[in-house]
């Protein structure tokens, strides 16, 4: 039985035996991430050089995962999201999106604290309290209407704020685009998420349901963008990678306040080749190195 289904479970404080593995896991991940700056393929400007060749040493694996997800999306996820969009009235979808978003506020508050952004923390706490009560469990974004605009923070962003670079780009089956930093940051985020901890951890039915609802909601929202990418891109994989990395760089800039470094439109961009860019796409059965060292 999951902890959520156990009527006594929620009243129990997290035991030391449960906290220790979480703390150890978080510690190991942070230690791994600490070496990422040395792994970065990006120049000293870090995330700011949006058009430098992306660090994609695992392109072979990534492209196969991309194909797999495209198949999965055509067969299952896309149709489910479109049916959800078709049968659910827009106000209901908006309410569901608000609930999902509201459950991220405690995590935002913690990351705001770690990032040294007390205003963000205070706003997230205020939003969570207002929307969970007056906003009926987060269905209505009453805080937003009162001027407390939504701004999420996550552990990947926190790491970026403190100078940890993206590391290699990673495209995972089912999960989709991420980077080594953001992927491991996501794991830490899940482990330290107050909502997750308060409801028994990431292995409960509640946590699984939350992931599914969040996924379907996000997929429904992204339907048109994905269609545009698939129909208009000459290389949907490269387009997805570019859009994801630019978006995450923008998220990190939100936390640092840095101004984006943009390429010059007068001169063609002189980019060094990445391993992905000067070699043809490897055949599907070619072995893919899962780990490569610096400079690979």
């Amino acid at each position, binding site marked *: 039985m999951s902890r959520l289904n156990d009527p006594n479970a929620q009243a129990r404080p997290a035991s030391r035996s449960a906290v220790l593995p979480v703390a150890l896991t978080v510690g190991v991940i942070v230690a791994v991430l600490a070496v990422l700056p040395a792994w970065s393929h990006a120049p000293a400007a870090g995330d700011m050089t*949006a*058009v430098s060749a*992306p660090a994609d040493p695992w392109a072979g694996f990534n492209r196969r995962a991309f194909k797999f997800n495209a198949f999965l999306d055509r067969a299952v996820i896309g149709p489910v999201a479109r049916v959800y969009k078709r049968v659910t009235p*827009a106000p209901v979808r*908006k309410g569901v999106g608000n609930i999902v978003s509201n459950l991220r506020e405690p995590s935002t508050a913690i990351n705001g604290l770690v990032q040294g952004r007390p205003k963000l923390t205070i706003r997230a706490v205020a939003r969570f309290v207002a929307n969970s009560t007056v906003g009926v469990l987060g269905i209505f974004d009453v805080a937003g209407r009162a001027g407390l605009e939504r701004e999420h923070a996550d552990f990947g962003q926190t790491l970026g704020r403190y100078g940890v670079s993206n590391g290699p780009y990673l495209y995972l089956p089912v999960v989709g685009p991420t980077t080594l930093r953001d992927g491991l940051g996501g794991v830490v985020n899940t482990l330290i998420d107050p909502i997750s901890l308060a409801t028994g951890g990431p292995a409960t039915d509640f946590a699984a349901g939350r992931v599914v609802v969040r996924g379907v909601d996000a997929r429904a929202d992204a339907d*048109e*963008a994905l269609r*545009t990418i698939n129909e*208009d*891109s*000459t*290389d949907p*994989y*490269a*387009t997805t*990678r*570019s*859009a994801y990395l*630019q*978006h*995450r*760089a*923008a*998220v990190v*800039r939100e936390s640092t306040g840095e*101004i984006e470094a*943009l*390429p010059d*439109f*007068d001169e*063609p*961009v*002189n*980019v060094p*080749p990445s391993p*992905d*860019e*000067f*070699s*043809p*796409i490897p055949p599907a059965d070619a072995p893919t190195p899962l780990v490569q060292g610096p400079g690979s």
Partner: protein
Amino acid sequence: MILPPPPDRRSFVTSLATASALAWSGLWSSAAVAQSGRSGRNLPAEQFVQVEGQNMFSVLSDRSLGDAAKQAAFRRLIDRVADLQRISGFVLGKYARAISPAQRQQFNTVFRTYVQGLYQTYLANFRGDQLRVTGSTARSPTDTIVNTVIDGAADGRALPVAWRVLGSPGSFKVVDVQASGVWLAITLQQDFVSTIDNARGDIGVLIARLQSGD
């Protein structure tokens, strides 16, 4: 694509007339440039985006236009407002210098049609119809990022969109548009360069794909 009716739509003709009036008026721009220098903003560029960006959304949300008329009107706007020549060089990235003059001409023709359609799809996806300028950052006297918010979408959300504008009053051109941190031209460059890389440097493959709409 069905777009929500705008609550207070300015007609396309009115917007064009406004744009023309602004282009002919030098008084406001000189004063605005002087103010820009003090604030780090570029008010003439902001005005340019306010007028021309609004024109784009007005065309996209104009239900009185049929699909063909809407497409034609939008493409004329893009031709006037965007610097397609400069964008077409930019999106080729490291291949811009390697391309032959004949291929370049062929690419420019194909790219123009492609990017006109892409801008139309991209901006229509925002599903808004009212554009508000919220500020700008002058990166140099001739390079400005204008920040706007698109209102009027069915879900009530205001969407921030940034426009990169090059040039000076009277010769402003849009070279890139950004939403959710993603620049359209930068994304296109990485898309195209990857396609050419995977074709072992054969730019003809990219041109063929753009032509066929793959």
